[in-house]
């Protein structure tokens, strides 16, 4: 019976080492947080992220939240993506040794049909392998080459018997970035898998938009930041389409580096944030990605603000209980003046109303977690193959 590594050896003229296989998520420090917060995006100084420019301090939304709690919730769809990565082998190509990374990617969108009915609406569950670009002995036809490998792998008896299918063989560039010295090939492999996951997320958002499921009354709440790293392959048209898909999408991050939160003058806002009162939100700031580096992306701005959903007396750190909310600015008007403050209030009040139930005891991040997101995450994880099962495919 042929093994996956034999196929890889054949195709890449390399030698596999049959080294120790493990789940990379725990072993290697994964640049997830960094990924969300790496400063591809800079705050636009002296620009407000919202129309109400008089708001200098925080704003109390207790009343608004109470008032809205009697109406239908704004958020109906909840999106979460996650991936589990594994280092499955090392391969020697051209006297250099590269890791072979593999991963399970899951992106789920759940729908809240009623308070008691929560169900899956879209699910992407993919298995991928990530190889260095060197694996392709030729310069041309990269896509074709990796596709070919994928097909061959899917024909392997063991893969078939397990009833699974690899959806993609990804490639990562073996060029080490000099700026970040701690970056290793493993990280590059994982990054490729992460990119694939982000693509999946975008695909699902696009699906929902195509089905006309998202509108002013039915928002999508995405776990994590919306600050997608611009794809190197992305073209402007594609991006503007993506941008439009995100008209009714909010990104909520439970983990954020408070040091990166800046006020509109660009100074660190961490101390003020720590003192944020319960159910208060900060003014919204406007962010933009690094225009110098990614000028081809055009105008791509965000409004970002923070809200405290849990009293700090109950939480373990002053930042627990605060979530960061982002929304992509779509229209010219928004790009110019920021989001309507009223909309921001409604969104924030709805987030406040999502604070319960809590996953206290099940998740250390309970103070920052929103329960529907937590459920989506749980659902997603339940769909993964077990680590042992997955690793034994190799």
């Amino acid at each position, binding site marked *: 019976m042929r093994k996956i590594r034999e196929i890889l050896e054949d195709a890449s003229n390399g030698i596999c080492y049959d080294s120790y296989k493990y789940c990379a998520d725990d072993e290697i420090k994964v640049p997830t947080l960094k990924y969300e917060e790496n400063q591809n995006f800079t705050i636009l100084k002296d620009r407000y992220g919202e129309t109400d420019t008089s708001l200098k301090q925080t704003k109390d939304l207790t009343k608004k939240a109470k008032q809205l709690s009697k109406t239908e919730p704004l958020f109906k769809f909840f999106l979460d993506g996650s991936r589990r990565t594994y280092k499955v082998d090392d391969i020697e190509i051209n006297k250099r040794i590269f890791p072979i990374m593999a991963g399970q990617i899951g992106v789920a969108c759940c729908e*809240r049909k009623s*308070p008691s009915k929560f169900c899956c609406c879209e699910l992407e569950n993919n298995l991928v392998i990530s190889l260095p670009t060197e694996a392709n002995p030729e310069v041309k036809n990269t896509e074709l080459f990796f596709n070919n490998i994928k097909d061959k792998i899917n024909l392997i008896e063991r893969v078939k018997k397990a009833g699974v299918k690899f959806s993609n063989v990804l490639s990562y560039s073996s060029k080490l970035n000099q700026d970040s010295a701690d970056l290793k090939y493993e990280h590059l492999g994982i990054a490729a898998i992460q990119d694939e996951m982000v693509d999946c997320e975008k695909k699902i958002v696009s699906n929902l938009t195509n089905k006309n499921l998202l509108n002013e009354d039915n928002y999508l709440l995405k776990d994590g930041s919306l600050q997608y790293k611009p794809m190197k392959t992305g073209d402007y048209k594609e991006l503007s389409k993506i941008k439009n898909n995100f008209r009714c999408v909010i990104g909520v991050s439970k983990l954020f580096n408070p040091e990166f939160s800046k006020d509109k003058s660009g100074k660190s806002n961490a101390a003020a944030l720590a003192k944020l009162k319960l159910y208060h939100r900060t003014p919204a700031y406007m962010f933009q990605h690094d225009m110098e580096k990614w000028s081809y992306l055009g105008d791509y701005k965000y409004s970002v603000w923070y809200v405290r959903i849990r009293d700090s007396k109950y939480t373990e750190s002053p930042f627990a209980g605060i979530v960061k909310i982002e929304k992509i600015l779509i229209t010219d008007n928004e790009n110019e003046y920021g989001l309507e403050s009223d909309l921001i209030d409604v969104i924030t009040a709805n987030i406040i109303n999502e604070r319960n*139930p809590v996953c206290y005891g099940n998740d250390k991040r309970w103070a920052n977690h929103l329960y529907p997101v937590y459920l989506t995450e749980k659902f997603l994880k339940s769909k993964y193959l077990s680590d042992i099962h997955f690793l034994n495919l190799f």
Partner: protein
Amino acid sequence: MKQIGKIIATEKVPTTVDDFFFWTDKELIIKPFDVVKVNHIKNSITFGVVQEISHLTDNSSFLAGFISSDFGDVNYQQYTQRIGMNYVHAKVVGNSQNIYTPVLDGSYVSLADEDDIKEALGLKDIKNPLTCGFIEMYEQPNSVTIPVHFNSHFLIGPEGAHLNISGISGLASKTSYAMFLLKAIQDKYLESKSDESVAYVLFNVKGRDLLAIDEPNIELTDEDFGIYKMLGLTTSPFQNAKYFYPYSKDIFSSTYGRDVKSQMELGKACLYKYIFEDDKESIDLLFSNVDDPNQTMESIVNYIATGQGGFNGITNWSELLKEVYEHTKAGSSGKDKEITVLSWRKFYRLFRKTIEKTTIFSNSLSSKAKDCEVRLKDSILNIQKNDLYVVDVAKLDEETQGFVFGDVIRSIYELKLGQANDRSESEIPSKIIIFIDELNKYASKEVPKSSPILRQLLDITERGRSLGIILFAAEQFKSDIHDRVKGNCSTHAYGRTNAIEISKPDYQYVPPVYKSMLTRLKQGEYILQNPIFRSLLNIKFPKPIYKQFKNG
């Protein structure tokens, strides 16, 4: 049928030969005793009976629940309810192809239809069917009502015999259930052309409970009659009933019955008496609840019955009393050193109390037909097929009640053994069913071991099956009953009882959920155990078909 969930087998809670677990929607209504079926290997079907239903959420602790209500705000309403599901613990009762390997994770679980339920519970193709109630399963629109039948050979012999009904007074309606079964038996044997025949001896121990069983219950509605018809029973009250009231000059002083006179005129009631000449040998029964470790009471009874000392030639109860009194005098025990004066005194005290209090001890029987006076023993010895005797002991004191009961079962025993008279075996009913409430008075664990009634009851439960003497007994607390008496019953009916009772070892084998169900069973609901059923059954039965007296 409707699929309601799937099997879950986990590392910690696997499915086994005996049990399985499945999840269901949290709003699905299902209850203990409901039957479910599971698709199993080789296209077979495994049947299970629901035991425990649990609701589960991802709440890790009570504290998380408190926090989720906005740190203790009872009025707080949330957008999302916590995710939750129900999981059900079911007990395997069978497989369509006798495959008993555990059911597999992810297998479909569905409700069962009538046929499935019958197969699952062992109610299919029952031989010698005898109605014992009906089961109701599931909620509308899936509800199913199925009549349940015993195999009569397992209730009234020859394979198994005796019934024990337990439950607290009033709420359990023990008498009603026993009477319902007797009604079913009477219906069956009145029409039966087989050699088997049945006669009944019932004791009325409470008010007028059983004193009008051949009169209809006017409170029954068409719906009640419908249930009787559904169960294949007639809607008429009991037939061939004959009532035996304790004799007294003023009849109302010895019975709660009000219609004694009219019943006597109709020829279906008699007054019973005990005559010294014929019944002196039974006086041991008067002392059955007296602690008698040295068997002095027994010796005295023996002494009297054999006519020793001055007891030879005595012809009536008062002379007997007088003679006993003679023996209580100091120095009178010269002749019979074995029995001390003190014992005679005790005997005298107890004996006098009973003789003077009750009126059934008499010197002679009236020979006039209109007086309808009988010796109970004579009537019992002449009991005919399908006869239904109701012996009223409700207003008698406890000792006399025991005396009458003991005397009746002793007579039945003698009749069935063929010692009593010259009746040919074919003439005697092949089975005689005795129904007694308050069994605890005669066969509780505290009754002295020497009690003649207890000995008689043990005889019946242990050997009665082969003789055709069947005991239907009821009591409030089963745990009080002598182990050998209840242990020999093939059928047990558990009505509503209380928490203290179910904590006793008698209920050890009952699953915890059923135990707590026992404490809240409705009137007209029983949990049945019979050798032919594969598991305990929660059955219902209709309201009594005979006249009910609300105020006793």
